[in-house]
Structures are given as structure tokens and as C-alpha cells.
């Protein structure tokens, strides 16, 4: 095709006409296609729902969430999104107050002893269809959760109640559960063992009520869709398009509806892409954004959005494999690792998340002891960095193990923090101790499976609390706990866990936890790294949002809007 310029003059009239027709037909076809696809978009995936982040007239907010709820049957849910949604839509006997305490829910008063508890239900608590919430609804929900046929992952949280474990094991009928409706408004609970903190467990979402007649009428689909649920909480789920959006609207039947200021909450975007969620926030499409990664801090600070943070209560640590035959079953090797565990550098120079705190112990700083914080009352042993001493310990370990070179498998996840941490540890342990670290990066499920199977030497893990008592951490390393991935087995530690489980004397319990804390250090059982906090940014015209470590991580039920911040 040379000489195009001269030939362009020769453009014949018919060719020009043909070009024009072609162009016109193409444009028309494209416009038609767009119209057709626009229609298709409006009828698929729930259609268009999203408005502005804040709608003052409608008293509505719009935001994004990281994942969809897999399903919303409270007896079976186990993920944080379901917990958050259900805590808006259902109300248990007691609620988390957002300041680490509890407040009345369906129960207006309660009498919690060390052997049993009695809850007195308010007479104006109603389901969204107008029927009263009764003690029977709680008994049914709890029996359902421990029923082996339900196969609830959270069945264990009921084990504090008499016969719950036996029912879950299929050894007793579900009607034997130690929770009884004395009348419609009085619920009595008997414990399996003496217990001091039952009121701290009851706000957990698995304790929410389920009404038997409605549950049975759904033929096994209870919680599958918005219409397969009844609500007794501050909000109702009015629209749930799987994978696309969840809409909550104020529940007029809620007994405390006057205290609920928002009329609607639209979770309009579901994506766990952090920068997409940040873009939605910056564009005014989402009222807030949480779980901000380290990389997004700079742009967000540059635009002067105020950052907030809340502790999610979790402690992240190096899980060590204690199974016989593993090099890490050798105390001197573990001690060497402990002597170079430079948590300051790890938190401040490697992870660089301003909200992360150095963990001084496996028991996080927020846990309460008798009066003050647990680690104030029972200070953990000071861990000093001593590379020379660590090398001596390593030599001892090598001699005892009969190895010249020690190489360890480090199991971790494929998320940004896990990648960063594992790369750091690999270089750091090579530099300080000359250890060869093989990083085994796995996605969530495979990582857990390998951990269960003991297919690792050291692994990065975190543990989040289920209730507000040191026990939620203390029994993790008991020999019978399946989440004790390293299979640490120390009768002395087990004994202390049992003492704390059986005693109702807070001093005795705290001393036992203090003893466990010392064992974890003295035997270098695990190496604590950091306590995690979540960073978030929020439109300043939205107030009163509760973000907390126990219970739903996010609670809009007391939130309200102000016109000018």
C-alpha cells in the first residue's frame, strides 16, 4: 500500500457511499447493543441500587463490605460478615455496649450466678411479624445449635451449658439441654461446670433467638434469603441479592426503635479489593472503609481523611510445631528463636502499620484481670534480644539433634501481611542464626489443613477472642484443643487450664492464667508478634458507629447523621 496519498483522491462515489452506510449501520448496531445491554444490566444482579454515601432526607447510608454473608442462619454462621449483619437484624438476651461491657437486650434483667443463670425477658420485645419474643425462641435456637444434625461450627460455645457437649456428641437428646423456658418470659440456664462469666458469652450472635414455627416452615432454608428470616433486632433485612448487595431497614417492631436513628443501611458493594473500596469511599459512594492496608495510608493521609482504628482483639504469633521428630521439638532451638524475636523491628520497620502493637505476651493487653489489665497484674517475662546467646543455644540444639545445618519450613498465608512477614523472617533468621527457612505459602484452607496435619516447623497464625475472658486464649494450647496446631502437650499447662475452668474464684483463675503465661515463655511454646488493630476512615457526618473487638466488628444501630461535621 504505497502512495496512499495520491490514491485517496481517487475515492469513488460508490465507495464513499458504502463507507457511510457501513459507518451508520455500525453506529446504529452499537447503540442498539448498548440499549439492550443496559436493559440486561438492570434486570441481572439485582439491578442498580447504589445512591450517595449519605442521603440525609431518607436518613440512609451506603457502604461496601468485604464479603457476602454465606447464609444467615444464626445457629450455623461463623464468619465476621454474617456476625455483623445478624447483630443488626437479631437481638439476643444481652448486647455488647461498644465499650467492652454489656447492656440489656431482650432480657430486661438477669441474675447470673456461678451454677445457673435466670433471664427475665421484656414484654415488648417483638418479632417483625408482631409476635412476642419468648424464652422458647431462645431454647429452640440453642438446642438447634448444639444438635449434631445442624453441624454448627460454633456448637462449642454452648459447652458451658449443661449437657450441651453430650448432645453435640450425639449421646443425648437435644431436649436435655440445660436451658429451660420456665414461662414465656423467664429463661433458666444450668451450667455444665461452675462458671463466672456466662453474661459475657450470652451476647455472642449464636445465642440469638430463632422462632420454631417459622424455622420449620422454611423447610431447611432458614436464613438462605431475606424472606427466609424473621427479625427482632434494630433492623430488618429487606433485600439481599447474593454477591451484590444487602439492604437493612429500620425495624418498627423493635422494642427500642426510638433509639435507632438511621432508616436504611445499604451494603451496595461487595468486594475484598482494598483499593476498590478506598476508591468508592473517596468518590463519595461509600460512607466508610475499613481494613485499610499499609499501602493505602499515604494517599488517604494526603487527602486529610481522618483515620480511625480499633483493636480487633487478635494476637498474631509464631506457631511452633512440637510434634516429636520435628527439629522445633528441641527446646534449645525454640529458645534460640525466642532470643532473636525482635518484635519492635517487625512491627515498626517491617509491617509499618501504625495501628499494630507489639505483643508482650500471648495474652493481649486489653484482657481484664481482677481489677486492671491482666498483663499489668501478671506482668509477662521480659524477652531480651541476645544474638550471641541465641547462637550458643543453636549450637546446643544442633548437637542434640545431630544436625549440621537446620532448615525449617515456615507455613504462612498468601495475604500481603503474611507475604511481608515471611520474607522478613526468612532473611532475618538466615542473617542472625544462619537458619535456612523454606517458605510454604498457602491459601486459607490449605494452610489450615497443613497446620492440622502438622506439615510445618513454624507457622504464622493469629487468634481472635470469642468472649471477654482470658480463657478464650488460655485453652488454645491445651493438649485437647484441635486449634493447638503445634500439638503442644504439657500436663502442667493442661492442669492450669482445668483449674481456671473449674474455679469460680477470680484470683485463683487469674493466677492460673499467669502460670500459663509463664509456661508459654519458659518453654518457648509460641512466639508472640503483635496485637492487630483495624484502620478505617469514615465520613465525618456519620456519628455513633460502634467498632469493637468482641461482637460485631461494626454496629450502625446507634449511628446518626449530622449535616455539618
Amino acid at each position, binding site marked *: 500500500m504505497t502512495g496512499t496519498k495520491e490514491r485517496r483522491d481517487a475515492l469513488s462515489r460508490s465507495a464513499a457511499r458504502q463507507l457511510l452506510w457501513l459507518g451508520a449501520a455500525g453506529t446504529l448496531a452499537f447503540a442498539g447493543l448498548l440499549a439492550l445491554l443496559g436493559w440486561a444490566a438492570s434486570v*441481572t444482579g439485582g439491578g442498580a441500587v447504589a445512591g450517595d454515601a449519605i442521603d440525609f432526607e431518607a436518613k440512609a447510608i451506603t457502604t461496601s463490605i468485604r464479603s457476602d454473608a454465606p447464609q444467615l442462619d444464626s445457629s450455623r454462621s461463623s464468619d465476621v460478615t454474617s456476625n455483623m449483619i445478624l447483630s443488626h437484624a437479631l437481638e439476643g438476651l444481652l448486647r455488647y455496649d461498644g465499650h467492652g461491657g454489656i447492656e440489656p437486650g431482650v432480657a430486661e434483667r438477669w441474675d447470673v450466678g456461678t451454677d445457673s443463670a435466670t433471664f427475665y425477658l421484656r414484654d415488648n420485645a417483638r418479632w417483625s411479624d408482631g409476635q412476642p419474643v419468648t424464652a422458647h425462641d431462645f431454647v429452640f435456637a440453642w438446642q438447634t445449635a448444639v444438635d449434631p444434625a445442624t453441624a454448627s461450627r460454633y456448637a462449642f460455645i454452648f459447652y458451658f451449658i449443661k449437657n450441651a457437649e453430650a448432645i453435640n456428641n450425639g449421646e443425648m437428646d437435644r431436649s436435655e439441654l440445660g436451658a429451660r423456658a420456665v414461662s414465656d418470659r423467664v429463661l433458666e440456664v444450668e451450667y455444665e461446670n461452675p462458671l463466672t462469666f456466662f453474661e459475657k458469652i450470652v451476647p455472642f450472635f449464636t445465642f440469638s433467638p430463632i422462632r420454631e414455627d417459622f424455622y420449620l416452615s422454611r423447610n431447611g432454608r432458614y436464613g438462605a434469603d431475606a424472606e427466609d428470616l424473621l427479625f427482632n433486632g434494630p433492623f430488618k433485612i429487606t433485600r439481599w441479592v447474593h454477591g451484590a448487595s444487602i439492604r437493612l431497614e429500620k425495624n418498627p417492631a423493635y422494642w427500642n426503635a426510638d433509639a435507632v436513628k438511621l432508616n436504611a443501611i445499604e451494603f451496595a458493594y461487595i468486594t475484598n479489593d482494598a483499593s476498590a473500596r478506598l476508591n468508592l469511599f473517596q468518590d463519595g459512594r461509600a460512607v466508610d472503609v475499613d481494613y485499610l492496608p499499609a499501602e493505602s495510608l499515604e494517599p488517604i493521609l494526603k487527602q486529610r481523611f481522618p483515620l480511625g482504628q480499633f483493636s480487633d482483639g487478635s494476637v498474631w504469633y509464631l506457631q511452633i510445631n512440637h510434634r516429636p521428630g520435628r527439629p522445633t521439638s528441641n527446646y534449645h532451638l525454640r529458645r534460640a528463636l525466642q532470643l532473636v524475636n525482635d518484635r519492635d523491628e517487625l512491627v515498626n520497620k517491617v509491617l509499618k502499620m501504625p495501628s499494630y502493637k507489639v505483643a508482650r505476651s500471648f495474652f493481649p493487653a486489653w484482657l481484664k484481670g481482677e481489677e486492671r489489665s491482666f498483663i499489668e497484674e501478671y506482668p509477662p517475662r521480659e524477652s531480651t534480644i541476645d544474638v550471641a546467646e541465641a547462637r550458643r543455644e543453636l549450637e546446643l540444639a544442633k548437637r542434640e539433634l545431630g544436625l549440621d545445618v537446620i532448615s525449617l519450613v515456615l507455613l504462612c498465608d498468601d495475604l500481603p501481611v503474611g507475604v511481608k512477614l515471611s520474607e522478613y523472617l526468612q532473611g532475618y533468621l538466615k542473617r542472625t542464626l544462619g537458619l535456612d527457612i523454606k517458605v510454604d505459602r498457602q491459601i486459607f484452607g490449605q494452610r489450615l489443613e497443613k497446620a492440622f496435619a502438622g506439615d510445618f516447623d513454624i507457622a504464622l497464625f493469629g487468634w481472635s477472642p470469642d468472649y471477654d475472658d482470658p480463657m478464650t486464649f488460655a485453652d488454645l494450647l491445651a493438649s485437647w484443643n484441635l486449634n493447638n496446631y503445634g500439638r503442644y502437650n504439657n500436663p502442667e499447662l493442661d492442669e492450669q487450664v482445668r483449674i481456671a475452668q473449674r474455679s469460680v474464684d477470680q484470683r485463683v483463675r487469674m493466677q492460673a492464667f499467669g502460670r500459663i503465661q509463664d509456661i508459654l515463655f519458659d518453654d518457648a511454646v509460641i512466639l508472640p508478634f503483635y496485637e492487630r488493630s483495624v484502620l478505617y476512615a469514615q465520613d465525618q457526618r456519620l456519628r455513633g458507629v460502634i467498632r469493637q473487638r468482641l461482637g460485631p466488628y461494626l454496629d450502625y444501630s446507634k449511628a446518626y447523621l449530622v449535616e455539618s461535621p
Partner: protein
Amino acid sequence: MFSYTLKRLIQGVVTVWFIATATFIAMHAVPGNPLTGERLTNDRIRANLEARYGLDQPVFDQYLIYMGNMLRGDFGLSYTQENRRVNDIIREHFPVSATLGVLAVAFAAFGGIVWGALTALYRNRLPDAIIMLLVILAISVPSFVVAGLSQLAIVNLNVFFRAPILPVAGWGTIWHMLVPAMVLGLSTMAYMTRLMRSSMLEITHADFIRTAQAKGLSPTRIFLKHQLRNAVLPVVTVLGPAIAAITTGGFVVELVFAIPGLGRYFVQAVQQLDYTVIMGTTVFYGAFLVFMVIVVDIAYGLIDPRVSLQ
């Protein structure tokens, strides 16, 4: 013609069966199962879950049960979204992916043909060099980068005009689809541009072009009537598989633009080892792909008289 179609369809069914079996074997070979979770405090809870989902049965029995159900068109219940049927997941989310995919394919095909023809027309000159550079970029830059950057561009655009020109993410109108569709179709467009360019150049030297020139036809007419029409055939060939690949969803695009399509479920299912969703989506995609290839082969025979269907 009829016997050819029938033969291809039977081959297709065998292919899909093979895909299903291979997927079944592969996913059971991966350590763990969909019930693995962080809160499994005792063996009993785990056993209760396995019994509920039939995972306590031998793998071969599970295979037979699964295949039997699949023949009846039942892909089963999802493990991770415990009350949802896989059929419902495909039925609700595939139309979203397909809608987006059609636009992406339209962008890719239209752009590919236009850019490809242009580069051939301006061979070895500046427009050719620029377009081919962009083509190489479009093929080699991963889609999560393109998706992220284009979303950031939308935010800046809206900030610049102080008005919502385009939605940042979400679904529901044609405006939500424009940018995601372009990102989704980008690499296919680039591929088609290259294909179009080479097939155009091949034809430039063909005898019938020389004949047309000798007849004294105008270059535009030669270009439209003789070159373009013949050069577009190879592009049609790759269009079939491309439609199947694009309409079944771009995981990254759906994630970044918060689009409730099937692609996200497909990838999530693999990450969570959700057996039934993996099987359902793989078999569905596989069948769709095989079907599209057959359709293209048949269409090709109809378009090009040199190809006979036997």
C-alpha cells in the same frame, strides 16, 4: 452437515465428561476439604459437618453420586454458602458476566478489526508503530493493574468535574459497564489486532487484489470489499473461544468493580475448595466453551466455501 454436527456434539459430551472427571480427581487431590475452618475445636463438630455433607463416604461413591445428580441437571448445594444451590448461583450470576462479556467482546472485535486494518494500512509507519506498541502493552500488562488504574482514573475524573461522571464500581446500568468491559476486552482486542494485521498483510499480496487494482477499482473499495472481508475470517475463528472466555467472567474485573458475576464465584470456590461450586462452574464453563467451538466450526463452514463439513 447433520451427521457432522451430531458427531461434534457427541465428541463435546465426552470432552465435558472428561473435564468433570479430571476436575473431580484434581480437587480431591488437594489437601483439605471445604469444611476446613479456624473454629473446629473438636473432632465431633468436624465429624458432624462431614456427615451432613456426605464427605464421610468413600471418594468413589461421592463421584458416582455426584455424576448421577449432574446427569439430572442438579449440581448440588454449595458448601460455603450453605443454603444455596449451585444451579441458583450459575443462574443468578452468569447473566451478569454474560452481559458484561457481550459488551467486552463487542469492544474487542470492533477495536481489533479497526486497529488491525489501520496498522496494515499504515504498515511500518508511525500509526502502525504506536498501535503495535499499545498492543504489546495491552497483552503484557496484567488486568489487575489495568483495572486498578482505570478505576483510579474514574475517581480523578469525578473529582476533577466535581460530579459523578462515571460510577466507580457496582452494577445496574450501562454506565457501570463501560470501563469494566473495556478492561475485560482489552487483551482480546490486542490479540485480534495482531491477528487482523497479519491476515490483512497476507491478503495485500494476493492475486485477486492485484486483479482488482488492475480493474481500476478505487483503493477504498478494494480495501472494504476485497481485503477487509477476506481478512476478517481468521478473526471470526478466534471469536468463539474468546466469547466463551470473556463471558464466563473476568475474576479480577468483577472483584475490582464489585460486579456480582460468576467469575468471582469460580475463583472463590477454588480458594475455599467448595467442591460442588468448583464442579458446577467448571462443567458449565467447559460445556459452554466446547459448544462455542463447535458453533464457530459450523459457522466457518457456512461462511467459507473452501471448508467442507465432514
